[in-house]
């Protein structure tokens, strides 16, 4: 373990110790401290994946890569997981000790990856020019894109419906697309003006989905993603980056946005409120002079053990809130950008 790792862990102890003594989930974080990194320079910080230990420390695992933006686990074995990064889709079978880039030159800059919980050999990845599908744990990939548009299929997010094998949503440049046969056929279920940035299924109600977009704000679906409605009260001018459901409270939902910061709903998406007091907020912020009115929130997540709300403020720090955004405190990972919070049930191991 390097000196940097020790420094990180010390900082993390300040804010990531679980509220309850025995958390039921392991927290994995995908992100990094990429400040001043450009292609070709040395990666002088620890980046990539972190695993929270039972003691509340974050342990780096895997390869040092500031470009990891996605993470997905095999539900049968949490030592098997996949990352999406600039180089493509990576896979490990041994909990991050060894890795393989599973994609080739023509599948690049993976934006998201997901595993079908009902068919765990099936893996889907969102890439810059569509969706790729694997039926053999990412050993091989295929372009199963019938029904996706020839252009406009830049895909930022893929998410599997946990209730039915092969039912997958893809958030593309021009809308939300759905397959119900494992990517053999896709159809557009909601056209958007611009990119769909995230799609998530409620842990409480499998028919309830929320999507976030670049110019349509947030979208809600109460029929399993067949129809979608624009969420009232969520601004639409700028991008909403992601959505997180609170597994401890069916009414609580949070949105993360560069411009708007953290938006929350405590009534199942009927109304929304900005909760940014205590976040760095309208400040010099992410590099002096840039977008001074923005809150620079890159990602939000909610801890299934206690409902703690997490917000990654770009290249500032990780922040946490134990009152669903009413107050915030800095929780370490100074200078980081976090692209994924993933909690894995310990029983799944």
């Amino acid at each position: 373990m390097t000196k940097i790792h020790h420094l990180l862990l010390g900082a993390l102890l300040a804010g990531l110790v679980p509220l309850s003594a025995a958390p039921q989930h392991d927290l994995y974080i995908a992100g990094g401290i990429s400040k001043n990194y450009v292609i070709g320079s040395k990666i002088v910080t620890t980046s990539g994946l972190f695993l929270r230990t039972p003691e509340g420390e974050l342990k780096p695992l895997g390869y040092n890569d500031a470009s990891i933006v996605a993470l997905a686990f095999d539900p049968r074995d949490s030592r098997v997981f996949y990352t999406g990064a600039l180089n493509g889709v990576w896979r490990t079978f041994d909990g991050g000790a060894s890795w393989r880039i599973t994609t080739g030159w023509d599948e690049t800059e993976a934006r998201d990856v997901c595993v079908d919980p009902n068919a765990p050999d099936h893996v889907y990845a969102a890439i810059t020019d569509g969706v790729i599908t694997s039926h053999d744990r990412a050993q091989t990939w295929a372009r199963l894109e019938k029904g996706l548009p020839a252009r406009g299929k830049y895909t930022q997010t893929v998410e599997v419906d946990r209730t039915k094998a092969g039912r997958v949503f893809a958030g593309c440049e021009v809308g939300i697309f759905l397959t119900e046969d494992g990517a053999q056929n896709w159809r557009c279920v909601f056209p958007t003006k611009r990119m769909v940035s995230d799609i998530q299924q409620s842990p409480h109600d499998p028919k309830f989905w929320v999507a976030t977009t670049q110019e349509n704000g947030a979208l809600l679906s109460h029929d399993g993603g067949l129809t979608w409605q624009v969420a009232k009260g969520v601004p639409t001018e700028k991008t909403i980056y992601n959505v997180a459901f609170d597994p401890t409270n069916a009414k609580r939902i949070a949105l993360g946005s560069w411009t708007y910061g953290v938006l929350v709903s405590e009534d199942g998406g009927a109304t929304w409120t900005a909760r940014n007091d205590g976040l760095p907020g309208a400040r010099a912020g992410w590099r002096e002079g840039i977008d001074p009115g923005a809150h620079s929130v890159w990602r939000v997540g909610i801890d299934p053990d206690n409902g703690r709300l997490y917000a990654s403020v770009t290249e500032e720090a990780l922040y946490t809130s134990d009152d669903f955004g009413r107050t915030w405190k800095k929780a370490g990972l100074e200078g980081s950008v976090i692209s994924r919070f993933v909690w894995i049930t310990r029983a799944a191991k």
Partner: protein
Amino acid sequence: MNLRSLSCAALLSLAAIVPLRAQPSFAGPMPSRAVVEGADQRRREYLDRIHEVLAWRAAQPVVPTATDPAPVDMAAICSRLALRQDAARNSRDVIKYMQDPGSGPFWMFPVVCAAYLGRDQLTPEAQKSIRDAWRSQMQVRGDTENHWVMYYSSLYLMSDLYPGEPGTAWYNGKSSTENLNESQEWLLQWMDLSTTVGQGEFNPTHYIGEYMIPLTMLATWSKDPAMRQRAHIMIDWILADFASNTLHGYLRGANSRSDDNSVLERWNALSSFFSWICFGQTPPTAGYGGWGIYYAAIAENYTVPEVIYRIAMDRGGDFEQHNLKRTRRRWRYSDVLFAPVYKTDYIRDTYAVGSNQGGALDSIQAHIWDVTWDVPDPRGVHNTMFSLHPYSSGAALQMYFVAYPEPWIKGVTFEGKPSYDSADKILGPSPYEQVYQNLDTVIALYDIPPDTRFPHINGFFSKDLKNVTEDKSGWIFAQGGQTFLAYRPLAGYEWQEYVGYATLWVPERGKGKGDRILQSPHLKNGTIVQAAAASEFKDFAAFQAAIRALPLEFKLEPVPTVTMTTLRGQQVTVTYGQAPVVNGATLDYAKTWKLFEGPYLNAEKGSRRLVITHGKLERILDLNTLTISDQIRE
């Protein structure tokens, strides 16, 4: 994820920041422009220049840093390896360098260079340290065309050097065979794309090194003779394209990518290093452009073909060249993956005019058009004139990169593109610019939506212009070197001092040198520039009279349109949003433009075959048959 994946101009410069101890040709007198007739003498002078670079770099003192009293760098190691100097030190330095390996293509190819140069010089321990780094250190592939050329050339050669090893022996978990195959697949499809529909990063002021160096490594060290030949063909192809685009050694517009300094001081770019080392007619830049060190380390393995040398050195007259290029990959918000770029160049002895059709070509660093005039010594001279609409857009960045729109519009200004979101910038494309060039006349029209971030156009007026005269006719006359220039703004304007942008090459900003911006705050707008050689007229007044006499009509509503007769007697009508009409015929770029068409370079679209000619000399590069054939034409 806001991984900053665009910049390498800064990294280019990092390699160049070394003490300038007696860098002979950079600080010396201007090289001769005379053609060297004898092949042996050309070769000897080429090798002398190579030796100058290597000897200079190898002799640079070690400069302690705050954390390391004796830092090592790969450029020095490669220079000494190429000179076969100080073997023990090279091995020690390699081992130390590999203790803290970098990531990405800019780290990979110098290490490959050392690995091959050091095969018979480095100790087994030093070679092992390189090998181990390729197992333990993840390498980022990058996201631009030059990144991938460097990445896959490097991975190909390392897989070639260490064949038959399993996935566990490599950072990406793939075996030597898998890495070699994947690298070859990509390299072949890139070569195919570049020789059928055009190069994406065409005529870059700096990035030519990121093509020439990896390709020269491939042409030298690949075990597969077919790959060596392919790489050789591509080196000739790129160098011939480059040679035909230079004006006495310095590259002018249009460029797929440039930067805030070289777009005005045309000589000050890595491309000038390649003119110097290959042709010898212009000085190299400071530190030999940084990456030039690596080219020098392997350049002995390449012989500059005489036909390309003569295209660069011995024009013999004015010429017009039409070339087809393409944009880089458009991931989203575009109907096409690659958009065609139609280039026009008209080059004379004392000046050159170059352009493409304008529009949202590239995202940040494209330079769409200019007139560049020759000067006896280009160092420090801003010998160019052009206009543009300063445009910045999160959506435009999204087209080419996996970015969110909000952070990057300012974020890129920290990544070697400091002017990107500035009103006074003089670099970059705009979707609201349309350009037509006919020989030495350029008509640039602008139709800018009212809600656009910067609702004006900028015209660049160099400190080095003489006799700038705002004529009551509406033309602005000026003289640059032995070139007369007439600039016609189509709407009102005001003058601003241009204070420049800090780059690692030119670190000061805010110290005006006398350059000016003609800023015209009108959404419907335009610029006409007509150039001519001073020798064509009795005096400057005669040129002005000739320009005033040109038939010219224009209007700005509902869209800008210009109808004029050029100084060369061509009747042209250009209307924004429509195809230009030339002597009564509507111009169809898609049907008219070949891959290359001109007196020196000719290729059909889709052909993979380039015919390079100069006088009786002819070289044919054929990627279909993997042949390079030379002949003397009757």
